């Protein structure tokens, strides 16, 4: 994977390998917060920011603390192999980072806090964030690729949720069969969206 440029990975993460539409991550908030475009945009921005930062931090932690000395081949903080702890470390990093961002934003920009703040706690439990960190490790990205992937995956999630919110707003006036109302029809719309995004498939390919 080392020869693919970060830009290619970024574009692929937005379109061909959209984290929501092809990896199904972040569905919970996708379903819950996709009724208004403004809300979706706010949440999407917050996710993009947190995802870019946490994939970066987690990459550094994984490659300089968790991995064993032999596997890394360079300086590591702890020589022993701690990779089995990656889940608990990653989620702790994400939770701590989100908390930190929340405090900083609240202190320095109350305006931004009221716009984005309410979404921040939601993000800790957004599986797309943890998923992006795990994917970056599994796919053996380099640091620059990881940054590209984290940002692209967040952007892809933003695109998907904003599109969905737009559709949902229109749909309030449509006559849907009773059992399909709510989540059910949202799923079927997502199905059509995922199909549309498959059209990008030939554009760039990553794993």
């Amino acid at each position, binding site marked *: 994977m080392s020869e693919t440029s970060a830009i290619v990975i970024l574009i692929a993460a937005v379109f061909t390998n959209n984290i929501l*539409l*092809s*990896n*199904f*991550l*972040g*569905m*919970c*908030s996708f*379903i*819950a917060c996709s009724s208004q475009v403004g809300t979706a945009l706010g949440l999407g921005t917050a996710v993009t920011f947190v995802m870019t930062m946490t994939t970066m931090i987690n990459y550094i932690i994984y490659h300089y603390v968790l991995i064993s000395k032999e596997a890394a081949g360079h300086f590591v903080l702890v020589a022993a192999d701690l990779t*089995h*702890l*990656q*889940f*608990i470390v*990653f*989620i*702790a990093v994400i*939770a701590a980072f989100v908390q930190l961002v929340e405090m900083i934003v609240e202190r320095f920009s109350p305006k931004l806090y009221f716009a984005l703040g*309410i*979404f921040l*706690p*939601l993000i*800790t*439990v*957004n*599986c*797309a*964030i*943890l*998923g992006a960190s*795990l*994917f970056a490790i*599994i796919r053996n990205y380099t640091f620059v690729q990881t940054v590209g992937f984290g940002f692209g995956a967040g952007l892809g999630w933003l695109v998907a949720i904003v599109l969905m919110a737009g559709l949902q707003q229109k749909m309030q006036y449509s006559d849907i*069969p*009773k*059992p*399909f*109302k*709510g*989540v*059910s*029809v*949202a*799923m*079927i719309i*997502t*199905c*059509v969206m*995922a*199909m549309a995004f*498959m059209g990008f498939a030939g554009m760039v390919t990553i794993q």
Partner: protein
Amino acid sequence: MANKNTCMTCGGSQGLCGGKGIATLKDGIWTSNPLAIQVLGICSALAVTNKLSNSLVMGVALMFVCVGSNLFVSLLRNHIPHRIRMIAEVAIIATFVILFDQFLKAYYWEMSKQLGPYVGLIITNCIVMGRAEAFALQNAPLVSMVDGLANGIGYGVALAIIGFVRELFGSGQVVLFGMTIDLGSWYTPNQLMILAPGAFFVFGVLIAAFNVLKGSDPEEDKK
């Protein structure tokens, strides 16, 4: 948590927290099936259901994690300070997820490869967290375990249905434990069912089917 009405509560299942034993079991599996009725934890549900065997393993994984974390959260419920309960729950859940992940890696490497990051993502699965938050924090250890088991089964069953449909129509046959159900040569496998859109579609229809069977009004359930 701001997402109280989606991930962290028991949604339209007010009776659940008071129910015990059999009632708890029935609630978890059918009346408030975590997947089809409450629509929790769908991330992993959609991702691993391209094959029936994957779906079953994921169901077992969730059951294990849910029972374990519910038991320990319940045992510690009087000792966890309210302010840091979330992080304590996450730590407990993550421990069980790591256990299961290591087990898969040690004994079922192929399966572990196929499930990829989705085993780890059980940590952020709203079902586990939701049950710990909504049930285990208020109830005795034993009934919490039953609740975890019930939700695990309910999730597993829904997952198995999606997995079965997707594998059957996606590849024309279902293979499980060496047994094969074949649709025959007249059927041309529809690749789309194995890919992402198929998952969304089957899941959407499954929710609708549950709504019909239960005779519930989805608009009311949302409240």
